[in-house]
């Protein structure tokens, strides 16, 4: 019996064991995100220099990135729906779309990081307006604000990266015809994980970029 079949059969409190496992992982992981964001709130309330929203960080670009992530969650749902209906073509198409959108999200984040790490006159002006006079870069060690920004977005970016690796694994097996309406336990696990990544981004985006 394959692992996927085993996952579909073993149940704890009506839940397939794989699904229960990922839910427990996500609950714990959610607390890790909460720790980072609550820590940032604490440092901010404790007097750390915290510029007004949009002064340093590129909110419009990140809003585009947010839309990209929402769309990837949507295509992930379509992929799950397709595999449940045994529509292999629709499943693979939507999975590839989700992969592309996830990669685009990381690409935009990498672009944003590069802009901050390399620095420049425009960034220097923005930093000066935010109270960080004389700084040319916005790097993790630049300030408490920068550390919180990189801590939250970097931790989230690692989750997106891990999700993409998981997705490539699922796609590789999909190309061999592994998943069907009867056996797709790990696809459900991937779907839950991907929505969790989307969910955590909602918190990071509001708390780090907008508040």
């Amino acid at each position, binding site marked *: 019996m394959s692992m996927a079949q085993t996952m579909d059969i073993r149940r704890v409190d009506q839940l397939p064991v794989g699904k229960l496992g990922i839910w427990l992982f996500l609950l714990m992981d959610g607390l890790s995100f909460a720790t980072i964001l609550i820590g940032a709130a*604490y440092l901010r309330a404790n007097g750390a220099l915290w510029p007004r*929203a949009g002064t340093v960080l590129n909110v419009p670009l990140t809003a585009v990135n947010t839309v990209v992530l929402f769309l990837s*969650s949507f295509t992930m749902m379509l992929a799950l729906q397709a595999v449940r209906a045994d529509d292999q073509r629709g499943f693979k198409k939507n999975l590839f779309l989700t992969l592309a959108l996830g990669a685009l999200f990381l690409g935009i984040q990498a672009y944003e990081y590069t802009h901050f790490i390399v620095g420049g006159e425009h960034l220097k002006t923005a930093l000066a307006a935010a109270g960080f006079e004389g700084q040319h870069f916005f790097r993790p060690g630049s300030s408490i604000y920068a550390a919180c920004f990189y801590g939250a977005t970097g931790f989230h970016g690692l989750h997106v990266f891990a999700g993409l690796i998981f997705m490539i694994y699922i796609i590789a097996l999909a190309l061999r015809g592994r998943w069907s309406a009867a056996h797709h336990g790990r696809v459900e696990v991937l779907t*839950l994980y991907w*929505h969790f990544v989307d969910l955590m981004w909602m918190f990071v985006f*509001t708390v780090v970029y907008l508040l």
Partner: protein
Amino acid sequence: MSLTKTYVAIVISLLVLTALELTIYPRVELGSARNAVLLTAMAIKALLVVLVYMNLKNEPLTLKISFFILIPVAAYFLLFMLYDAKYIWHS
């Protein structure tokens, strides 16, 4: 409503709420109302994803409780730490 239509409705709601957030965030003159709107929009978006996309609304009660119990715990820590920060800041 078919499942696809539900998913489309959710993604549109997420986009509308994000647009609302983007309209509100530069309005610092709104004071604490600005924060309240931003946090409420964030909470609604999170609930939509958890209940519909992650399908928590159809999961066993134990799982629902395990999920929602963490929210007051996180809120307690947040309030406690902010109170502590305020104390240090004023002393």
